């Protein structure tokens, strides 16, 4: 499925980087305000979908030169690795606190970082899944 129109194409060219930026923003602020990995991933994948519709599959392939499965499973791997890491310190899975010293100034940034990695994993998975599904289905249609 491809919708071609000059206006759409031009606007999409503009919208894509903007919405990707917006997605990054959403994912970063998610811990304190509405947002987070899911929403960011969805925003990004909608942007990709629109791009796909206006420029076609090859263009998207040039933009995202990896198979979506790599995207998904890198994301899932990131989430898994972040969650497993505490096990090595004798803590339960997914524990976001690292180390045993409870100094707020040190532990807070550390913890924040681990959650971001997890959230980025989520983002990648969501992008990969939605882009992957829609790409495959529209490929079928053509």
């Amino acid at each position, binding site marked *: *499925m491809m919708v071609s129109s000059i206006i759409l194409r031009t606007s999409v060219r503009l919208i894509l980087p903007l919405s990707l930026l917006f997605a990054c923003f959403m994912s970063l602020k*998610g*811990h*304190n*305000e*509405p*947002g*987070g*990995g*899911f*929403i960011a991933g*969805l*925003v990004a*994948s*909608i942007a990709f*979908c629109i791009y796909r519709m206006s420029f076609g599959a090859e263009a998207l392939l040039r933009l995202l030169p990896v198979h*979506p*499965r790599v995207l*998904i*499973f890198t*994301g*899932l791997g990131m*989430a*898994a690795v972040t*969650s497993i890491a505490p096990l090595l310190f004798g803590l339960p*899975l*997914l524990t*976001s*606190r690292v180390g045993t010293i*409870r100094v707020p100034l040190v532990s*807070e940034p550390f*913890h*924040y970082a681990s*959650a971001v990695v*997890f*959230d980025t*994993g*989520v983002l990648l*998975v*969501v992008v*990969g*899944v*939605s882009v*992957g*599904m*829609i790409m*495959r*289905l*529209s*490929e*079928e*249609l053509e």
Partner: protein
Amino acid sequence: MEQPSSFWLLLAVFAPVLAGLLSMRIRPSLVTPRVLVALVGPVVSFLSVLIHLAGHGVAKTDAATKVITWIPSLNLNVAFLADGLGAFFALLVSGIGILIVLYARPYFGMSKDEQYRFYPTLGFFTTAMMGIVLSDYMLLTLLFWEMTSISSFFLIGWYRYEKESVHKAMQAFFTTGLGGMAMLGGILMFGSSEGIWRWSEVAHWHPHSSGYVIAAFCMMFAGAATKSAQYPWHYWLPGAMVAPTPVSTFLHSATMVKAGVFLVGRMYPAFHELTIWPWLILIPGAITMLFGAVTALNQHDLKRIFAYTTVSQLGLLMCAYGLGGLEFEHGGQHLMAIDWDVTQIANHAFYKAPLFIIAGAIAHVAGTRDLPKLYGFWRVNKPMVIVMLLAGYALAGGPGTISFPAKELFFYAIYHAFEIHWIFQVLAVMAVLTAVCNVAIFVRLFTTLLGLPFGQRDLSFDVAVQGQGHGHGDGHDEHHDVGFWAAMLWVPGAVLVAWQYLGGLLPNLWSWIFRPLEANVNYEGFAERLPFVWEMHWGIPLIMSLCAIGGGLVVGLSPLMRGAVGDVHDRIYPFLYWLCVHGGGRAFRTFQSGHFRWYVVAVVSFLILGFAGSVYFEPAMLDVHTASPLEFWPGLLLGIVICVSALMLPMVEKRVIRVLVLGACGFSVVGMYLIYQAPDLALTQLMFELISVILFVLVLRMLPSPDVKKSPGKVWRIAISAAVGITMGWMTLLAANSGTPPALGPFFEANSYEGTEATGGRGGGGHNIVNVVLVDFRGFDTLGEITVLSIAALGVWALLPGRAVRRLEEKFGSEGGAA
């Protein structure tokens, strides 16, 4: 008293199967060594039992061997009980086992393949049988019981690539398996209600007629009855004649079918006081006895004749035990109407085994088992005919064999029972008629085999000419043995039949051997030893015997009842099978119709009915206080949009409008989330709504256009779906107004950014509580859900593989095209 060790009995039980397996290790071409190795099994068993008995004597009923722990929490351990009954059976089984091993060798000739698998299977069966008779734990008995079913399945289905044989094997296994299940139930019920799991403990049990005990007893008897071919479950036994003759001999003389009799004997000391005992056992027993005898008389095939006499004799043995439940006064004493039960069993084994052995041998030599065709077989093979007639004489219960006093004892028991109820006179008549048939069978065998007048004769067939030299009726080898192995076709029969005359002519010797094994000898007249023929008390029983002999002579010589009739009960199993397959299949397919719509109806009906039931049990749930919906108008408005768009969905037809309607519903839900102070939800739902609509539009374009068929009835669809909706809506209302304080939410709020005392000052480090819950408090859920997402993507790709994979599949084929 010190408990004897289990070692010798363990050896006795497992020696046959070990020897059998060992014989498989010998090279197929070495037949004689194979036989010798297989022979070791029953010989060791026999000797081990003897050694055990020599060391410890015949056990009292409550003196079991030491326990080898196996599964104590299920009351299943290994311990043995070599009391009179058990020890006798063990010796009988292993003794006849020895002879069968010897007999099988010439029977199968030099057929390597058959002997290769025969000895292990036979060993397995012998082990199972030894286990039944020696086990102390009831469940252990059951274990071996089922093993006999399994191994007899292999033996009966010996010619496994022939349909008939397979069918009969299945029939036998299913019938005895059915009984096995009943027996399992009985043992479990008895054990769990009385706390008794060992036969040796039963001796200390005080019988009482509670419902559980009676039900347990009935079920255990059902097990015994199917195994021992009691009417109407007898049909499997003649069917089992498709097996090779060594198997028939072993199964039907001493082992498999006697297992049921053995079980009744095991139960006798404990259960005979139940009032139900005599009636439950006597009625099928008596019918079986007479039916078997009459049918046997109307057969031509030797094996079928002996099969039905076996059925008859099993009925007689059951009757003997059934009568044992009766008490009567004699000379001021309370006596039980059972005597010398072990002798009764031994008697049958000692004439039935030779009969089968010779039947097989004749078939092997003459190529037929049809009695009319064997007219004058005397001229072909004299030793065989002699042994057969000697055994047949015992079958008829002729004086001079142990069979005669055994039958007399049975008549005595019936005679005494006259005192209790007149109905036993009917039993007496049935017993006499049975004896008449047995005598007649002997007369017919005698006249036919010797080629005398009045014998049955098939004029088209002269056994002396046609039968000699090529046996392909039953034996399967062209090559005939000579010398030692040829003699082995009939010598085992001679060895066994000798016991008949030993007992009949030297009753003192017999009594000396068997008296210690007889657990329950009550009648003082026969307490010490068996009588000689002339020592019998004159009276009704002897008259009965004379009637039987006279009647038998008349019937045997007369032209009556000389046909070969079928047995209507052979249809029972096919009918049951048909019932299960067709009736059961129909019942199942009523539910499993393949129609998705019906499945949905069933599932939601479950929900609706369950809800109705809950209302019945918990009327309080109909009582909900909620505020008016009019108070918050934006909510009301959104709610109306949601409801209306949902309701429109089934009504509109056009694709575009449908998508619009779906979108309207979704976006109103987004609004609802906003009202409910859930910005994260609203955002996420919005995005997913967008992507889903894209997906949906894509997919709708790919689907085939709908049929124009009418949709199914609307009224019931609306009724069912409305009921489901109301159920769930009501539950939502109820739970939302339950007033239970949530325990988790406040904790998340308190610890979202900074911890509290409860968490030791540890917090989630985020202001957005929902997100902190998602990645921290319940981050594990999130890990799961992104996994679901990933799997969904994999699933989509697996369903619709990319071009590269498809090219490969075209090249190498796919599952559908591969075999």
